[in-house]
Protein backbone atom coordinates (compact mmCIF):
# COMPACT_ATOMS: atom_id res chain seq x y z
CA UNK A 1 0.00 0.00 0.00
CA UNK A 2 2.74 2.43 1.00
CA UNK A 3 4.66 1.78 -2.19
CA UNK A 4 1.57 2.30 -4.34
CA UNK A 5 0.93 5.58 -2.56
CA UNK A 6 4.55 6.61 -3.06
CA UNK A 7 4.39 5.75 -6.73
CA UNK A 8 1.31 7.91 -7.15
CA UNK A 9 2.86 10.72 -5.13
CA UNK A 10 6.04 10.72 -7.17
CA UNK A 11 4.38 10.27 -10.52
CA UNK A 12 4.66 12.63 -13.43
CA UNK A 13 0.92 13.10 -13.34
CA UNK A 14 0.86 14.54 -9.81
CA UNK A 15 3.97 16.63 -10.50
CA UNK A 16 2.33 18.39 -13.43
CA UNK A 17 -1.00 18.60 -11.67
CA UNK A 18 0.37 20.38 -8.61
CA UNK A 19 2.17 22.92 -10.77
CA UNK A 20 -0.96 23.97 -12.62
CA UNK A 21 -3.03 26.35 -10.42
CA UNK A 22 -6.05 26.23 -12.75
CA UNK A 23 -6.18 22.44 -12.60
CA UNK A 24 -5.73 22.41 -8.82
CA UNK A 25 -8.45 24.99 -8.17
CA UNK A 26 -10.83 23.32 -10.63
CA UNK A 27 -10.23 19.98 -8.99
CA UNK A 28 -10.83 21.39 -5.50
CA UNK A 29 -14.10 23.02 -6.58
CA UNK A 30 -15.23 19.87 -8.39
CA UNK A 31 -14.37 17.79 -5.34
CA UNK A 32 -16.39 20.08 -3.06
CA UNK A 33 -19.36 20.05 -5.45
CA UNK A 34 -19.34 16.28 -5.93
CA UNK A 35 -18.84 15.47 -2.26
CA UNK A 36 -21.51 17.91 -1.09
CA UNK A 37 -24.01 16.70 -3.67
CA UNK A 38 -23.52 13.03 -2.81
CA UNK A 39 -23.57 13.84 0.88
CA UNK A 40 -26.78 15.86 0.37
CA UNK A 41 -28.96 13.64 2.61
CA UNK A 42 -26.51 14.27 5.47
CA UNK A 43 -25.54 17.90 5.03
CA UNK A 44 -28.63 19.46 3.48
CA UNK A 45 -30.63 21.43 6.10
CA UNK A 46 -33.99 20.23 4.70
CA UNK A 47 -35.31 17.25 2.78
CA UNK A 48 -36.89 18.57 -0.43
CA UNK A 49 -38.34 15.14 -1.30
CA UNK A 50 -40.44 14.95 1.87
CA UNK A 51 -43.68 16.91 1.39
CA UNK A 52 -44.38 16.84 5.12
CA UNK A 53 -41.53 19.24 5.84
CA UNK A 54 -42.56 21.75 3.20
CA UNK A 55 -44.85 24.65 4.00
CA UNK A 56 -46.38 26.49 1.08
CA UNK A 57 -46.38 29.65 3.21
CA UNK A 58 -42.58 29.65 2.99
CA UNK A 59 -42.60 29.95 -0.81
CA UNK A 60 -40.49 32.48 -2.64
CA UNK A 61 -38.55 33.64 0.41
CA UNK A 62 -35.38 35.49 -0.62
CA UNK A 63 -31.88 34.45 0.52
CA UNK A 64 -30.88 35.02 4.15
CA UNK A 65 -28.79 38.15 3.50
CA UNK A 66 -31.87 39.90 2.14
CA UNK A 67 -34.01 41.98 4.57
CA UNK A 68 -37.01 39.68 4.13
CA UNK A 69 -35.00 36.47 4.28
CA UNK A 70 -34.75 34.19 7.30
CA UNK A 71 -31.76 32.31 8.62
CA UNK A 72 -33.77 29.11 8.30
CA UNK A 73 -33.47 29.20 4.51
CA UNK A 74 -29.94 30.23 3.68
CA UNK A 75 -30.46 30.69 -0.04
CA UNK A 76 -34.18 31.34 0.10
CA UNK A 77 -36.96 29.03 -1.06
CA UNK A 78 -38.49 28.14 -4.39
CA UNK A 79 -42.07 28.52 -5.55
CA UNK A 80 -43.23 25.49 -3.54
CA UNK A 81 -41.56 26.56 -0.35
CA UNK A 82 -38.63 24.15 -0.59
CA UNK A 83 -35.27 25.23 0.79
CA UNK A 84 -33.30 26.22 -2.30
CA UNK A 85 -29.89 25.15 -0.96
CA UNK A 86 -31.10 21.63 -0.18
CA UNK A 87 -32.97 21.36 -3.46
CA UNK A 88 -29.91 22.50 -5.38
CA UNK A 89 -27.70 19.93 -3.65
CA UNK A 90 -30.15 17.14 -4.40
CA UNK A 91 -30.60 18.47 -7.92
CA UNK A 92 -26.86 18.55 -8.54
CA UNK A 93 -26.64 14.96 -7.38
CA UNK A 94 -29.22 13.97 -9.98
CA UNK A 95 -27.41 15.99 -12.66
CA UNK A 96 -24.05 14.38 -11.89
CA UNK A 97 -25.51 10.86 -11.73
CA UNK A 98 -27.21 11.34 -15.09
CA UNK A 99 -24.04 12.85 -16.57
CA UNK A 100 -21.82 10.00 -15.40
CA UNK A 101 -24.35 7.32 -16.25
CA UNK A 102 -24.91 8.64 -19.74
CA UNK A 103 -21.16 8.85 -20.37
CA UNK A 104 -20.62 5.32 -19.07
CA UNK A 105 -23.25 4.08 -21.52
CA UNK A 106 -21.84 6.14 -24.39
CA UNK A 107 -18.31 4.98 -23.65
CA UNK A 108 -19.32 1.33 -23.46
CA UNK A 109 -21.27 1.40 -26.72
CA UNK A 110 -18.75 3.64 -28.45
CA UNK A 111 -15.67 1.66 -27.44
CA UNK A 112 -17.12 -1.71 -28.40
CA UNK A 113 -18.43 -0.43 -31.73
CA UNK A 114 -15.30 1.60 -32.45
CA UNK A 115 -13.03 -1.37 -31.72
CA UNK A 116 -15.02 -3.73 -33.90
CA UNK A 117 -15.30 -1.29 -36.75
CA UNK A 118 -11.63 -0.33 -36.66
CA UNK A 119 -10.36 -3.89 -36.40
CA UNK A 120 -12.74 -5.85 -38.59
CA UNK A 121 -12.85 -4.33 -42.03
CA UNK A 122 -16.09 -6.01 -43.04
CA UNK A 123 -18.03 -4.37 -40.19
CA UNK A 124 -16.48 -0.97 -40.70
CA UNK A 125 -18.73 0.42 -43.41
CA UNK A 126 -22.01 -0.67 -41.87
CA UNK A 127 -21.16 0.41 -38.32
CA UNK A 128 -19.84 3.80 -39.38
CA UNK A 129 -22.89 4.44 -41.56
CA UNK A 130 -25.08 3.67 -38.56
CA UNK A 131 -23.01 6.18 -36.59
CA UNK A 132 -23.44 8.77 -39.35
CA UNK A 133 -27.19 8.28 -39.34
CA UNK A 134 -27.20 8.58 -35.56
CA UNK A 135 -25.16 11.79 -35.73
CA UNK A 136 -27.47 13.31 -38.29
CA UNK A 137 -30.26 13.33 -35.71
CA UNK A 138 -29.86 15.98 -33.06
CA UNK A 139 -29.63 14.72 -29.48
CA UNK A 140 -32.59 16.85 -28.48
CA UNK A 141 -34.76 15.56 -31.26
CA UNK A 142 -34.20 11.96 -30.23
CA UNK A 143 -34.65 12.86 -26.59
CA UNK A 144 -37.91 14.71 -27.21
CA UNK A 145 -39.15 11.86 -29.34
CA UNK A 146 -38.31 9.06 -26.91
CA UNK A 147 -39.30 11.16 -23.90
CA UNK A 148 -42.71 11.88 -25.35
CA UNK A 149 -43.31 8.21 -26.17
CA UNK A 150 -42.36 7.11 -22.67
CA UNK A 151 -44.48 9.78 -21.02
CA UNK A 152 -47.43 8.50 -23.02
CA UNK A 153 -46.70 4.87 -22.29
CA UNK A 154 -46.15 5.15 -18.56
CA UNK A 155 -48.36 8.12 -17.80
CA UNK A 156 -47.08 11.32 -16.24
CA UNK A 157 -47.38 9.96 -12.71
CA UNK A 158 -45.14 6.95 -13.27
CA UNK A 159 -42.77 8.96 -15.42
CA UNK A 160 -41.24 10.37 -12.25
CA UNK A 161 -39.83 6.96 -11.32
CA UNK A 162 -38.24 6.20 -14.64
CA UNK A 163 -37.12 9.72 -15.52
CA UNK A 164 -33.47 9.40 -14.37
CA UNK A 165 -32.67 6.03 -16.04
CA UNK A 166 -34.56 7.16 -19.11
CA UNK A 167 -32.48 10.33 -19.42
CA UNK A 168 -29.29 8.27 -19.04
CA UNK A 169 -30.50 5.99 -21.80
CA UNK A 170 -31.51 8.83 -24.12
CA UNK A 171 -28.33 10.89 -23.74
CA UNK A 172 -26.20 7.74 -23.82
CA UNK A 173 -27.76 6.50 -27.04
CA UNK A 174 -27.61 9.88 -28.71
CA UNK A 175 -23.90 10.51 -28.24
CA UNK A 176 -22.12 7.15 -28.66
CA UNK A 177 -20.84 7.92 -32.20
CA UNK A 178 -18.42 10.47 -30.69
CA UNK A 179 -16.66 7.64 -28.89
CA UNK A 180 -17.01 5.18 -31.73
CA UNK A 181 -15.31 7.54 -34.17
CA UNK A 182 -12.50 8.46 -31.81
CA UNK A 183 -11.79 4.84 -30.92
CA UNK A 184 -12.03 3.69 -34.52
CA UNK A 185 -9.54 6.34 -35.68
CA UNK A 186 -7.05 5.28 -33.00
CA UNK A 187 -7.56 1.59 -33.75
CA UNK A 188 -6.88 2.16 -37.43
CA UNK A 189 -3.60 3.85 -36.50
CA UNK A 190 -2.63 1.25 -33.89
CA UNK A 191 -3.43 -1.90 -35.81
CA UNK A 192 -0.77 -1.15 -38.41
CA UNK A 193 1.93 -1.07 -35.75
CA UNK A 194 4.31 -3.97 -35.48
CA UNK A 195 3.36 -5.01 -31.97
CA UNK A 196 -0.03 -6.05 -33.31
CA UNK A 197 1.65 -8.17 -35.96
CA UNK A 198 3.96 -9.57 -33.31
CA UNK A 199 0.94 -10.48 -31.18
CA UNK A 200 -0.52 -12.31 -34.16
CA UNK A 201 2.75 -14.14 -34.76
CA UNK A 202 2.72 -15.23 -31.12
CA UNK A 203 -0.60 -16.90 -31.88
CA UNK A 204 -2.97 -14.78 -29.78
CA UNK A 205 -6.65 -14.70 -30.66
CA UNK A 206 -8.19 -11.68 -32.38
CA UNK A 207 -10.37 -10.84 -29.39
CA UNK A 208 -7.36 -10.79 -27.11
CA UNK A 209 -5.38 -8.62 -29.53
CA UNK A 210 -8.26 -6.16 -29.75
CA UNK A 211 -8.98 -6.03 -26.06
CA UNK A 212 -5.57 -6.34 -24.44
CA UNK A 213 -3.23 -4.87 -27.02
CA UNK A 214 -5.07 -2.28 -29.07
CA UNK A 215 -7.63 -0.92 -26.62
CA UNK A 216 -5.17 0.23 -23.92
CA UNK A 217 -3.25 2.14 -26.59
CA UNK A 218 -6.37 4.06 -27.64
CA UNK A 219 -7.40 5.11 -24.15
CA UNK A 220 -5.84 8.56 -23.92
CA UNK A 221 -8.16 10.23 -26.47
CA UNK A 222 -11.05 8.36 -24.84
CA UNK A 223 -10.10 9.84 -21.47
CA UNK A 224 -10.02 13.33 -22.92
CA UNK A 225 -13.39 13.17 -24.63
CA UNK A 226 -14.88 11.54 -21.53
CA UNK A 227 -14.40 14.70 -19.46
CA UNK A 228 -15.90 16.87 -22.15
CA UNK A 229 -18.74 14.41 -22.62
CA UNK A 230 -19.63 14.41 -18.91
CA UNK A 231 -20.03 18.19 -19.09
CA UNK A 232 -22.01 17.84 -22.31
CA UNK A 233 -24.30 15.21 -20.83
CA UNK A 234 -25.02 17.38 -17.79
CA UNK A 235 -25.79 20.26 -20.13
CA UNK A 236 -28.04 18.09 -22.31
CA UNK A 237 -29.90 16.97 -19.23
CA UNK A 238 -30.31 20.57 -18.07
CA UNK A 239 -31.52 21.61 -21.50
CA UNK A 240 -34.06 18.77 -21.65
CA UNK A 241 -35.26 19.55 -18.15
CA UNK A 242 -35.53 23.19 -19.12
CA UNK A 243 -37.82 22.16 -21.94
CA UNK A 244 -39.89 20.14 -19.51
CA UNK A 245 -38.75 16.77 -20.88
CA UNK A 246 -36.25 15.94 -18.18
CA UNK A 247 -36.58 15.52 -14.46
CA UNK A 248 -40.04 16.29 -13.08
CA UNK A 249 -40.52 19.10 -10.53
CA UNK A 250 -41.00 16.68 -7.68
CA UNK A 251 -37.42 15.50 -8.16
CA UNK A 252 -35.82 18.53 -9.76
CA UNK A 253 -32.40 18.56 -11.34
CA UNK A 254 -30.54 21.83 -11.80
CA UNK A 255 -32.19 22.29 -15.19
CA UNK A 256 -35.72 21.83 -13.90
CA UNK A 257 -35.01 24.28 -11.06
CA UNK A 258 -33.92 26.89 -13.58
CA UNK A 259 -37.17 26.40 -15.52
CA UNK A 260 -39.28 26.49 -12.39
CA UNK A 261 -37.76 29.80 -11.35
CA UNK A 262 -38.03 31.23 -14.82
CA UNK A 263 -41.73 31.85 -14.37
CA UNK A 264 -41.10 33.97 -11.28
CA UNK A 265 -38.15 35.96 -12.48
CA UNK A 266 -40.27 38.96 -13.43
CA UNK A 267 -42.00 39.01 -10.08
CA UNK A 268 -38.62 39.64 -8.48
CA UNK A 269 -37.76 36.11 -7.32
CA UNK A 270 -34.51 35.98 -9.25
CA UNK A 271 -32.73 33.55 -6.91
CA UNK A 272 -34.76 30.52 -7.95
CA UNK A 273 -33.31 30.69 -11.45
CA UNK A 274 -29.99 32.45 -10.96
CA UNK A 275 -28.55 30.37 -8.11
CA UNK A 276 -29.02 26.94 -9.76
CA UNK A 277 -27.83 28.54 -12.98
CA UNK A 278 -24.57 29.69 -11.37
CA UNK A 279 -24.07 26.26 -9.83
CA UNK A 280 -24.62 24.58 -13.22
CA UNK A 281 -22.19 26.92 -14.96
CA UNK A 282 -19.60 26.40 -12.22
CA UNK A 283 -19.94 22.61 -12.41
CA UNK A 284 -19.57 22.50 -16.18
CA UNK A 285 -16.75 25.04 -16.20
CA UNK A 286 -14.56 23.14 -13.75
CA UNK A 287 -15.17 19.84 -15.55
CA UNK A 288 -14.17 21.42 -18.86
CA UNK A 289 -11.09 23.09 -17.37
CA UNK A 290 -9.99 19.77 -15.93
CA UNK A 291 -10.66 18.13 -19.28
CA UNK A 292 -8.46 20.70 -20.99
CA UNK A 293 -5.71 20.05 -18.53
CA UNK A 294 -5.93 16.27 -19.03
CA UNK A 295 -5.76 16.77 -22.79
CA UNK A 296 -2.64 18.91 -22.46
CA UNK A 297 -1.08 16.46 -20.06
CA UNK A 298 -1.70 13.48 -22.33
CA UNK A 299 -0.32 15.29 -25.36
CA UNK A 300 3.40 15.84 -24.72
CA UNK A 301 3.69 17.91 -27.88
CA UNK A 302 1.84 20.70 -26.09
CA UNK A 303 4.22 20.86 -23.12
CA UNK A 304 5.52 24.32 -22.73
CA UNK A 305 9.20 24.02 -21.95
Amino acid at each position, binding site marked *: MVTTWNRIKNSDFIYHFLRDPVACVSFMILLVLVVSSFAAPIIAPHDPYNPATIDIMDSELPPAWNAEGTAKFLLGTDDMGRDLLSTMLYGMRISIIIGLGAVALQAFLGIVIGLLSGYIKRLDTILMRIADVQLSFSTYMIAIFIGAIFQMMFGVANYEQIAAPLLILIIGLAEWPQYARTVRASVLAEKKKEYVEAARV*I*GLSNIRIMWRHILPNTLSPVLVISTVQVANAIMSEAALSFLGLGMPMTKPSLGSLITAGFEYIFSGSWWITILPGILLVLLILVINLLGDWVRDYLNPKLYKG
Partner: protein
Amino acid sequence: MSELLKIKNLNVDFALRERTLRAINDVSISIDKGERLGVVGESGAGKSVLGFSIINLISKPGYIDSGQIVFKGEDISKYSYDRMRTIRGNQISMIFQDPMMTLNPVLSIGEQMRETVFAHMNVSKAKANEICVEKLKKVYIPSPEKRLNQYPHEFSGGMRQRIVIAISLLTNPDLIIADEPTTALDVTIQAEIMDLLLELCKTDNMGLMLITHDLSVVSQVTQRIAVMYAGTIVELGDTATVAHKPQHPYTVGLLGALPQRAGSEKRLNQIPGVMPGLAKIPAGCPFSDRCSLVGDICREKRPQLLEKTNGIRVACHFVE
Protein backbone atom coordinates in the same frame (compact mmCIF):
# COMPACT_ATOMS: atom_id res chain seq x y z
CA MET B 1 19.57 -34.99 -40.10
CA SER B 2 15.83 -35.05 -40.46
CA GLU B 3 13.95 -32.46 -42.40
CA LEU B 4 12.11 -29.87 -40.31
CA LEU B 5 10.61 -27.60 -42.94
CA LYS B 6 10.28 -28.20 -46.62
CA ILE B 7 8.89 -25.61 -49.00
CA LYS B 8 7.95 -27.09 -52.35
CA ASN B 9 7.28 -25.02 -55.49
CA LEU B 10 5.79 -22.17 -53.50
CA ASN B 11 4.02 -19.40 -55.39
CA VAL B 12 2.71 -16.36 -53.56
CA ASP B 13 0.50 -13.89 -55.40
CA PHE B 14 -0.76 -10.42 -54.63
CA ALA B 15 -4.16 -9.73 -56.15
CA LEU B 16 -4.33 -6.11 -57.19
CA ARG B 17 -7.27 -4.47 -58.82
CA GLU B 18 -6.02 -4.73 -62.39
CA ARG B 19 -3.79 -7.76 -62.23
CA THR B 20 -2.17 -10.34 -60.07
CA LEU B 21 1.49 -10.02 -59.21
CA ARG B 22 3.73 -12.90 -58.26
CA ALA B 23 5.88 -12.07 -55.25
CA ILE B 24 7.31 -15.55 -54.70
CA ASN B 25 7.93 -17.55 -57.86
CA ASP B 26 8.40 -21.29 -57.63
CA VAL B 27 10.58 -21.34 -54.52
CA SER B 28 11.69 -24.66 -53.09
CA ILE B 29 13.86 -24.78 -50.03
CA SER B 30 14.25 -26.90 -46.94
CA ILE B 31 15.59 -26.55 -43.43
CA ASP B 32 16.79 -29.53 -41.43
CA LYS B 33 16.34 -29.86 -37.71
CA GLY B 34 18.78 -27.49 -36.01
CA GLU B 35 19.98 -26.06 -39.29
CA ARG B 36 20.63 -22.37 -39.78
CA LEU B 37 19.66 -20.98 -43.16
CA GLY B 38 20.28 -17.45 -44.35
CA VAL B 39 18.02 -15.75 -46.88
CA VAL B 40 19.66 -12.72 -48.48
CA GLY B 41 18.73 -10.28 -51.17
CA GLU B 42 17.96 -6.66 -51.85
CA SER B 43 14.89 -4.88 -50.52
CA GLY B 44 11.82 -6.15 -52.32
CA ALA B 45 13.30 -9.52 -53.28
CA GLY B 46 10.51 -11.30 -51.40
CA LYS B 47 12.53 -12.40 -48.38
CA SER B 48 10.03 -11.20 -45.81
CA VAL B 49 7.05 -12.44 -47.80
CA LEU B 50 8.68 -15.87 -47.81
CA GLY B 51 9.04 -15.69 -44.02
CA PHE B 52 5.46 -14.61 -43.48
CA SER B 53 4.08 -17.18 -45.89
CA ILE B 54 5.56 -19.96 -43.76
CA ILE B 55 3.39 -18.94 -40.80
CA ASN B 56 0.51 -18.05 -43.13
CA LEU B 57 0.37 -14.39 -42.18
CA ILE B 58 0.94 -12.72 -45.53
CA SER B 59 -0.74 -9.35 -45.40
CA LYS B 60 -3.72 -8.88 -47.69
CA PRO B 61 -4.07 -8.92 -50.69
CA GLY B 62 -1.33 -11.55 -50.75
CA TYR B 63 -2.11 -15.27 -50.70
CA ILE B 64 -0.45 -18.59 -51.33
CA ASP B 65 -1.37 -19.56 -54.88
CA SER B 66 0.15 -22.99 -55.02
CA GLY B 67 2.88 -25.09 -53.51
CA GLN B 68 3.42 -26.89 -50.26
CA ILE B 69 4.86 -25.89 -46.92
CA VAL B 70 5.59 -29.10 -45.09
CA PHE B 71 6.43 -28.67 -41.43
CA LYS B 72 7.26 -31.87 -39.53
CA GLY B 73 5.63 -33.92 -42.24
CA GLU B 74 2.39 -31.95 -42.44
CA ASP B 75 1.39 -29.46 -45.11
CA ILE B 76 0.59 -26.36 -43.06
CA SER B 77 -0.08 -24.05 -46.00
CA LYS B 78 -3.74 -25.06 -46.04
CA TYR B 79 -4.36 -24.77 -42.29
CA SER B 80 -7.12 -22.44 -41.14
CA TYR B 81 -6.30 -19.29 -39.16
CA ASP B 82 -7.24 -20.89 -35.86
CA ARG B 83 -5.50 -24.17 -36.52
CA MET B 84 -2.41 -22.23 -37.54
CA ARG B 85 -2.42 -20.50 -34.17
CA THR B 86 -1.37 -23.76 -32.52
CA ILE B 87 1.82 -23.64 -34.58
CA ARG B 88 2.48 -19.91 -34.73
CA GLY B 89 4.42 -18.73 -31.72
CA ASN B 90 4.48 -22.28 -30.47
CA GLN B 91 6.53 -24.42 -32.82
CA ILE B 92 7.52 -21.65 -35.20
CA SER B 93 8.20 -18.20 -33.81
CA MET B 94 9.30 -15.02 -35.44
CA ILE B 95 11.55 -12.11 -34.55
CA PHE B 96 11.06 -8.75 -36.22
CA GLN B 97 13.33 -5.98 -37.32
CA ASP B 98 12.51 -3.17 -34.94
CA PRO B 99 12.35 -4.04 -31.23
CA MET B 100 11.06 -0.51 -30.52
CA MET B 101 7.90 -1.40 -32.37
CA THR B 102 7.29 -5.07 -31.63
CA LEU B 103 6.65 -4.67 -27.91
CA ASN B 104 3.37 -3.18 -26.80
CA PRO B 105 4.21 0.08 -25.01
CA VAL B 106 1.40 -0.12 -22.46
CA LEU B 107 1.92 -3.67 -21.19
CA SER B 108 4.74 -4.71 -18.90
CA ILE B 109 7.31 -7.19 -20.18
CA GLY B 110 6.00 -9.80 -17.75
CA GLU B 111 2.43 -9.47 -19.01
CA GLN B 112 3.49 -9.78 -22.63
CA MET B 113 5.62 -12.83 -21.89
CA ARG B 114 3.01 -14.58 -19.74
CA GLU B 115 0.45 -13.96 -22.44
CA THR B 116 2.51 -15.99 -24.88
CA VAL B 117 2.89 -18.79 -22.35
CA PHE B 118 -0.83 -18.87 -21.59
CA ALA B 119 -1.69 -18.88 -25.28
CA HIS B 120 0.07 -22.19 -25.78
CA MET B 121 0.45 -23.88 -22.41
CA ASN B 122 -1.96 -24.68 -19.65
CA VAL B 123 0.04 -23.57 -16.61
CA SER B 124 -0.40 -21.56 -13.42
CA LYS B 125 0.71 -17.95 -13.16
CA ALA B 126 3.60 -18.85 -10.88
CA LYS B 127 4.80 -21.49 -13.31
CA ALA B 128 4.47 -19.04 -16.20
CA ASN B 129 6.58 -16.51 -14.33
CA GLU B 130 9.15 -19.19 -13.73
CA ILE B 131 9.34 -19.94 -17.46
CA CYS B 132 9.66 -16.23 -18.27
CA VAL B 133 12.49 -15.72 -15.79
CA GLU B 134 14.30 -18.77 -17.10
CA LYS B 135 14.15 -17.50 -20.69
CA LEU B 136 15.19 -13.98 -19.71
CA LYS B 137 18.23 -15.50 -18.00
CA LYS B 138 18.98 -17.35 -21.19
CA VAL B 139 19.23 -14.09 -23.13
CA TYR B 140 21.39 -12.59 -20.36
CA ILE B 141 18.96 -10.03 -18.95
CA PRO B 142 20.28 -9.19 -15.46
CA SER B 143 17.91 -9.54 -12.47
CA PRO B 144 15.03 -10.89 -14.58
CA GLU B 145 12.55 -11.12 -11.67
CA LYS B 146 12.67 -7.36 -11.26
CA ARG B 147 12.65 -6.70 -14.98
CA LEU B 148 9.37 -8.55 -15.49
CA ASN B 149 7.43 -5.65 -13.98
CA GLN B 150 9.02 -3.03 -16.17
CA TYR B 151 7.68 -1.52 -19.35
CA PRO B 152 9.37 -1.52 -22.78
CA HIS B 153 10.46 2.12 -22.53
CA GLU B 154 12.62 1.22 -19.55
CA PHE B 155 14.90 -0.92 -21.73
CA SER B 156 17.55 -0.07 -24.29
CA GLY B 157 17.23 -1.14 -27.93
CA GLY B 158 19.55 -4.13 -27.57
CA MET B 159 17.82 -5.31 -24.42
CA ARG B 160 14.42 -5.03 -26.06
CA GLN B 161 15.60 -7.23 -28.91
CA ARG B 162 16.81 -9.75 -26.31
CA ILE B 163 13.39 -9.66 -24.72
CA VAL B 164 11.78 -10.22 -28.11
CA ILE B 165 14.09 -13.20 -28.56
CA ALA B 166 13.21 -14.43 -25.07
CA ILE B 167 9.51 -14.21 -25.99
CA SER B 168 10.15 -16.24 -29.13
CA LEU B 169 11.91 -18.88 -27.02
CA LEU B 170 9.15 -19.23 -24.43
CA THR B 171 7.48 -22.21 -26.02
CA ASN B 172 10.71 -23.94 -27.07
CA PRO B 173 10.05 -23.63 -30.80
CA ASP B 174 11.67 -25.87 -33.38
CA LEU B 175 12.15 -23.05 -35.85
CA ILE B 176 12.77 -19.35 -35.45
CA ILE B 177 12.25 -17.02 -38.37
CA ALA B 178 14.32 -13.90 -37.76
CA ASP B 179 13.36 -11.10 -40.13
CA GLU B 180 16.31 -8.69 -40.17
CA PRO B 181 16.72 -8.94 -36.39
CA THR B 182 19.71 -6.60 -36.21
CA THR B 183 18.93 -3.94 -38.79
CA ALA B 184 17.59 -1.41 -36.28
CA LEU B 185 20.49 -1.88 -33.86
CA ASP B 186 23.96 -0.38 -33.84
CA VAL B 187 26.94 -2.48 -34.90
CA THR B 188 28.28 -3.60 -31.53
CA ILE B 189 24.81 -4.65 -30.39
CA GLN B 190 24.28 -6.40 -33.73
CA ALA B 191 27.22 -8.68 -33.05
CA GLU B 192 25.97 -9.43 -29.52
CA ILE B 193 22.50 -10.31 -30.74
CA MET B 194 23.83 -12.53 -33.53
CA ASP B 195 26.15 -14.34 -31.12
CA LEU B 196 23.22 -14.85 -28.80
CA LEU B 197 21.01 -16.27 -31.57
CA LEU B 198 23.81 -18.56 -32.71
CA GLU B 199 24.42 -19.83 -29.19
CA LEU B 200 20.70 -20.44 -28.55
CA CYS B 201 20.30 -22.35 -31.80
CA LYS B 202 23.28 -24.54 -31.00
CA THR B 203 22.33 -25.34 -27.39
CA ASP B 204 18.66 -26.06 -28.10
CA ASN B 205 19.16 -27.53 -31.56
CA MET B 206 16.73 -25.03 -33.03
CA GLY B 207 16.29 -24.30 -36.70
CA LEU B 208 16.88 -20.72 -37.76
CA MET B 209 15.80 -18.92 -40.88
CA LEU B 210 17.72 -15.66 -40.92
CA ILE B 211 16.31 -13.11 -43.32
CA THR B 212 18.70 -10.24 -43.92
CA HIS B 213 20.42 -8.11 -46.51
CA ASP B 214 23.63 -8.10 -44.52
CA LEU B 215 25.95 -10.70 -46.01
CA SER B 216 28.52 -10.45 -43.24
CA VAL B 217 25.89 -11.35 -40.65
CA VAL B 218 24.77 -14.35 -42.67
CA SER B 219 28.24 -15.70 -43.20
CA GLN B 220 28.97 -15.62 -39.46
CA VAL B 221 25.88 -17.43 -38.33
CA THR B 222 24.40 -19.68 -40.98
CA GLN B 223 25.34 -22.99 -42.53
CA ARG B 224 23.56 -22.46 -45.83
CA ILE B 225 22.60 -19.39 -47.86
CA ALA B 226 19.74 -18.81 -50.25
CA VAL B 227 20.15 -15.72 -52.42
CA MET B 228 16.84 -14.28 -53.55
CA TYR B 229 16.18 -11.97 -56.46
CA ALA B 230 12.77 -10.73 -57.61
CA GLY B 231 10.89 -13.52 -55.89
CA THR B 232 13.08 -16.43 -56.95
CA ILE B 233 16.07 -18.17 -55.46
CA VAL B 234 19.06 -17.60 -57.72
CA GLU B 235 21.73 -19.35 -55.70
CA LEU B 236 21.55 -21.87 -52.90
CA GLY B 237 24.41 -23.62 -51.18
CA ASP B 238 26.57 -23.90 -48.11
CA THR B 239 27.68 -20.59 -46.67
CA ALA B 240 31.43 -20.93 -47.04
CA THR B 241 31.29 -21.86 -50.71
CA VAL B 242 28.72 -19.24 -51.70
CA ALA B 243 30.52 -16.52 -49.77
CA HIS B 244 33.96 -17.29 -51.17
CA LYS B 245 33.16 -18.57 -54.65
CA PRO B 246 29.86 -17.07 -55.71
CA GLN B 247 28.61 -18.40 -59.05
CA HIS B 248 25.54 -16.43 -59.99
CA PRO B 249 26.37 -12.97 -61.39
CA TYR B 250 23.93 -11.41 -58.91
CA THR B 251 25.68 -12.97 -55.91
CA VAL B 252 29.01 -11.93 -57.37
CA GLY B 253 27.70 -8.39 -57.63
CA LEU B 254 26.27 -8.41 -54.10
CA LEU B 255 29.53 -9.60 -52.58
CA GLY B 256 31.49 -7.17 -54.73
CA ALA B 257 29.32 -4.34 -53.47
CA LEU B 258 30.44 -4.84 -49.85
CA PRO B 259 32.34 -1.69 -48.85
CA GLN B 260 35.32 -3.67 -47.52
CA ARG B 261 35.88 -5.21 -50.98
CA ALA B 262 36.59 -1.81 -52.53
CA GLY B 263 39.95 -0.30 -51.69
CA SER B 264 40.11 2.81 -49.58
CA GLU B 265 39.26 6.07 -51.31
CA LYS B 266 37.93 4.20 -54.32
CA ARG B 267 34.38 4.32 -55.55
CA LEU B 268 32.21 1.55 -54.10
CA ASN B 269 31.28 -1.18 -56.54
CA GLN B 270 27.64 -1.46 -57.36
CA ILE B 271 25.29 -3.51 -59.47
CA PRO B 272 23.96 -1.20 -62.18
CA GLY B 273 20.23 -0.52 -62.18
CA VAL B 274 17.64 -1.35 -59.55
CA MET B 275 15.64 -4.47 -58.90
CA PRO B 276 12.56 -4.44 -61.12
CA GLY B 277 9.19 -3.94 -59.46
CA LEU B 278 6.94 -7.00 -59.37
CA ALA B 279 5.01 -5.70 -62.36
CA LYS B 280 8.10 -5.26 -64.50
CA ILE B 281 10.07 -8.46 -64.04
CA PRO B 282 11.54 -9.25 -67.45
CA ALA B 283 10.59 -12.43 -69.28
CA GLY B 284 13.33 -15.02 -69.19
CA CYS B 285 15.92 -14.49 -66.48
CA PRO B 286 14.69 -11.86 -63.97
CA PHE B 287 18.24 -10.56 -63.59
CA SER B 288 18.86 -10.19 -67.34
CA ASP B 289 18.44 -6.40 -67.42
CA ARG B 290 21.27 -5.81 -64.96
CA CYS B 291 23.54 -8.72 -65.74
CA SER B 292 26.98 -8.21 -67.28
CA LEU B 293 27.00 -11.68 -68.86
CA VAL B 294 23.60 -11.39 -70.48
CA GLY B 295 23.04 -13.22 -73.77
CA ASP B 296 20.07 -13.88 -76.05
CA ILE B 297 19.02 -17.03 -74.21
CA CYS B 298 18.67 -15.05 -70.95
CA ARG B 299 15.94 -12.87 -72.40
CA GLU B 300 13.97 -15.84 -73.67
CA LYS B 301 14.27 -18.65 -71.19
CA ARG B 302 14.03 -18.52 -67.41
CA PRO B 303 17.01 -20.48 -66.02
CA GLN B 304 16.30 -23.38 -63.65
CA LEU B 305 17.86 -23.69 -60.20
CA LEU B 306 20.24 -26.54 -61.01
CA GLU B 307 23.09 -28.14 -59.17
CA LYS B 308 26.45 -26.94 -60.50
CA THR B 309 29.99 -27.59 -59.39
CA ASN B 310 30.79 -27.73 -55.64
CA GLY B 311 27.23 -28.88 -54.89
CA ILE B 312 25.85 -25.37 -55.22
CA ARG B 313 22.55 -24.77 -56.98
CA VAL B 314 22.53 -21.79 -59.31
CA ALA B 315 19.86 -20.40 -61.61
CA CYS B 316 21.96 -19.11 -64.51
CA HIS B 317 22.46 -20.22 -68.12
CA PHE B 318 26.14 -19.37 -68.09
CA VAL B 319 27.33 -21.07 -64.95
CA GLU B 320 28.76 -24.51 -65.59
